[in-house]
C-alpha cells in the first residue's frame, strides 16, 4: 500500500502510470493457456458456482414460467397453458337472455307470471312445458291472436326472436332461453336441444309471419 500518512485531500496521487497499469494486466491475460498448456475458459471453482446458478435458474424457470404462455398470469399454474373456454350452461345463458331489456322479461315479467289480462304467463303454462315443436315455433317466429293459457284467454302479439327477426337470435340462444323457461318458476320440462331448433327452423324455411294458436294446434 502506498498511501502517504498525510495525503493532500485536494488531489489524490496515482500509484502507477497508465502504461504500467495496461502492461501488468495485459500480462495476466497473456498467461492463458496456463503453465500446463491447457486453455481454461473458466476456473473450476467459478465454473462450479456458475453451474449452480444455471441449475437454479433453469429449475426456477421451468417451474414458474407458466410454459411461456401469453395467457398464464399465475406462476403457480401447472395445467395446460391454453385456457379452454368452459362449456356454457344453457340455463345460465338463457337466464341472461331472458333478462335482456326489451325481450322476454318486458312482457312475461321477471317472475314469469306475465300480466293478467294482457300477457300470458310462462310459469305453469302448458304451452311452455308441453310440445317442443310448438314452443320452438313461437320463439322463432312470434305469435299473435287469441290464445288460451292456463285456463285464461289472452289476445296480444309476440315478436319472433329467431334469425331474420329483429332480435336475430341464433339457434343456440333460442335453445338456451327455452331450456331456461322450461325449468324455472316450478316448470319441470326437459331441455330443448339446439339441433331440434335448427331442424324446426330449416323445416319452416323463410317463414317470417307470426303463428296463431290455431295453426300451432295442428302441430304435434
Amino acid at each position, binding site marked *: 500500500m502506498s*498511501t502517504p500518512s498525510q*495525503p*493532500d485531500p485536494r*488531489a489524490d496521487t*496515482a500509484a502507477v502510470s497508465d502504461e504500467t497499469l*495496461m502492461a501488468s*494486466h495485459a500480462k495476466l491475460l497473456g498467461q492463458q493457456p496456463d503453465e500446463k498448456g491447457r486453455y481454461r475458459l473458466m476456473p473450476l471453482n*467459478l465454473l462450479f458456482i*456458475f453451474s449452480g446458478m444455471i441449475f437454479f435458474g433453469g429449475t426456477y424457470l421451468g417451474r*414458474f414460467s407458466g410454459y411461456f404462455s401469453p395467457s398464464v398470469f399465475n406462476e403457480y399454474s401447472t395445467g395446460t397453458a391454453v385456457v379452454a373456454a368452459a362449456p356454457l350452461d344453457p340455463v345460465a345463458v338463457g337466464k341472461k337472455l331472458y333478462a335482456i331489456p326489451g325481450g322476454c322479461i318486458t312482457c312475461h315479467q321477471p317472475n314469469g307470471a306475465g300480466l293478467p289480462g294482457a300477457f300470458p304467463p310462462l310459469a305453469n303454462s302448458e304451452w311452455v312445458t308441453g310440445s317442443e315443436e310448438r314452443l320452438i315455433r313461437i320463439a322463432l317466429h312470434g305469435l299473435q291472436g287469441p290464445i288460451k293459457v292456463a285456463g285464461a284467454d289472452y289476445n296480444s302479439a309476440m315478436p319472433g326472436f329467431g334469425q331474420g327477426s329483429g332480435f336475430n337470435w341464433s339457434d343456440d340462444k333460442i335453445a338456451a332461453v327455452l331450456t331456461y323457461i322450461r325449468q324455472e318458476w316450478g316448470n319441470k320440462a326437459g331441455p330443448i336441444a339446439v339441433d331440434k331448433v335448427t331442424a324446426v327452423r330449416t323445416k319452416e324455411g323463410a317463414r317470417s309471419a307470426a303463428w296463431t294458436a290455431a295453426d300451432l294446434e295442428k302441430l304435434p
Partner: protein
Amino acid sequence: MPNPPTHATTAEVTAIDTQARGPLLLLLGSGLVWLVVSGVLALLTSIQLHAPQFLADCPQLTHGRAQALRETAFVYGWLANAGLGLALWILARLGGRPLRGLNWVVAGSLFWNAGVALGLVGIAIGDMTSFGLLQMPRYVQPLLVFAYACMGVSGVLAWSGRREDAMYASQWYAVAAIFLFPWLLIAAQAVLLWMPVRGVVQPIAATWFAQGVWALWLAPLALAVVYYIVPKISGRIIPVYEWASLGFWTLLFIGSWSGGRHLVGGPVPAWIPTMAVVAQSMMLFHYLIILLNLRAIWGVGGTTAAFIRFGFVAYLVFGVAEFIASFRGVAAHTHFTLFNAAIEQLGLYGAISMIFFGGIYFAVPRLTGLAWASASLISGHRWLVLAGVVISIAALGIAGGAQGEGLLDPKVSFPDMFGRMSTPLLINTAAQAVLLSANLLLLVNFLRSACPWTRTAEPTPTLFRAATEEAHAS
C-alpha cells in the same frame, strides 16, 4: 497482493489531459449543474410527499411531473454528462493517444444539454410520455440520439486508435456503454414513441429500456471508472483479473433481462417476472466477480478512494437488494412502495453517483493541472453527501416498509398509511436538503478549480511530483 513494479516516471498530467481539458471539463461541469437542478427538484418532490398541497396548484410541478423532471435531470443531465466525460478521459488515457473529434464532443455536449433542457421544459408544459426514464417528449429524442452519437464518436475513435492492441477492463466497459446507449435509446423510442406497440407490451418495453439504462449504460460507465481508478490509486494489480471478462459478459448478456421485476403480479404473462428473478440470480455471479476484482480498494486513503469504496459497496448491496426484491414473496411487501425508491436511490446515487464523484475528484486535478481549489469544500462535500445518501436511503426504505405493511392490511386507510410514513418522509426531506447543499459545495469547488481566471494567483501545486516520488518509494 504484491505491488507491481511501478516505475512511474511519466508526469501525471500528460498531453492527453491538457488537450482534452476544455471539452471534458465542459461535460463534467454541465453534469454538476444538472445535479444541482435535480437536487432542487428532489427536495421539492420529497416535500410533496408529506405536504401534498405543496406547489399543487402549479401545473408545471405536480408531483408526477416533478418526479419525472428530477429523474430526467439526474440521469440525462448529471449521470450522462459526468459518465461520458469520465469514460472519454479513461479511453484516451488508456488508449495512449490524444482524443480525436473534440469539436464533435463540444458540439454534441451543447446539443445534449440543449436537448435535456428542452426535454425538461416539455415535461413541465405537459408533453411528458408515460415511460420511466423516457419521459422526455418525442420531439427532443432524435436530438438526444444525435448529440450522444456526436460525443460517443470520440470515445470509439480513442478506443479503436489505441496504441496497445491489448485492452484493459475499463476499456471494455467504457466502449460498451458508449456504443450501446444510442442503440438502446433508438430501440426504445421506436417501439414506444414512433411506432407504439399495443397494450401491455408498452410497459414491458419500457421496463426493458429502464433496465438497459442501468445494465448496459450506467453500470458499465461506473465500472469503467472503478476498474481504472482502483489500480491507479492503490498501486495493486486487480486480484483474479483473469475473471474480469466473465463479469463483463455476465453484466451485458444477463443484466438487461431483469426489467420484469417491476411488473411482478401485473397483467403480463408469468414468464416475464420469472425471467427477471432468474436474471437477477445469475447476476449475482457478476457481483461476485466485481467483489473479488475490486476488493483492492480496501485500505487506500484519500478522497477518491473514499468515494469509490462507498460506491463499490453500494453497487454490491444494490445487486443483492435487487435480487431479493425480485422474488414474488418479497415483492408482495415491497412492490408499489417507496422501498423501490430506496433501491433506486441506492443504485443511482449510492453506487453510480458516488463512483462518479470519486472519478471527478481524481480526474479534475489532472485535467486542469492544478489541485482542487479548496480542501474544506472537498471535506464538506464528502461528509454531507455521505450523510445525505445514507440517511435518504434508510429513510425511504423505512417509509417503504411502513407503506408495504399498510398496503397489505386492507383496514389501513391511505391517510393512516401516510401517518405512519410521515417521520421517515420528513427525514428524507432533510436528507435531500443535505444532499443539495453538498452538491452545491462541489459545484462551487469545481467552478473555482476549473475556471482559469480564478486560479491564476495561486501557486502551482506540487502534488504530481509527489506522485512520482511516492511510486518510487513503494
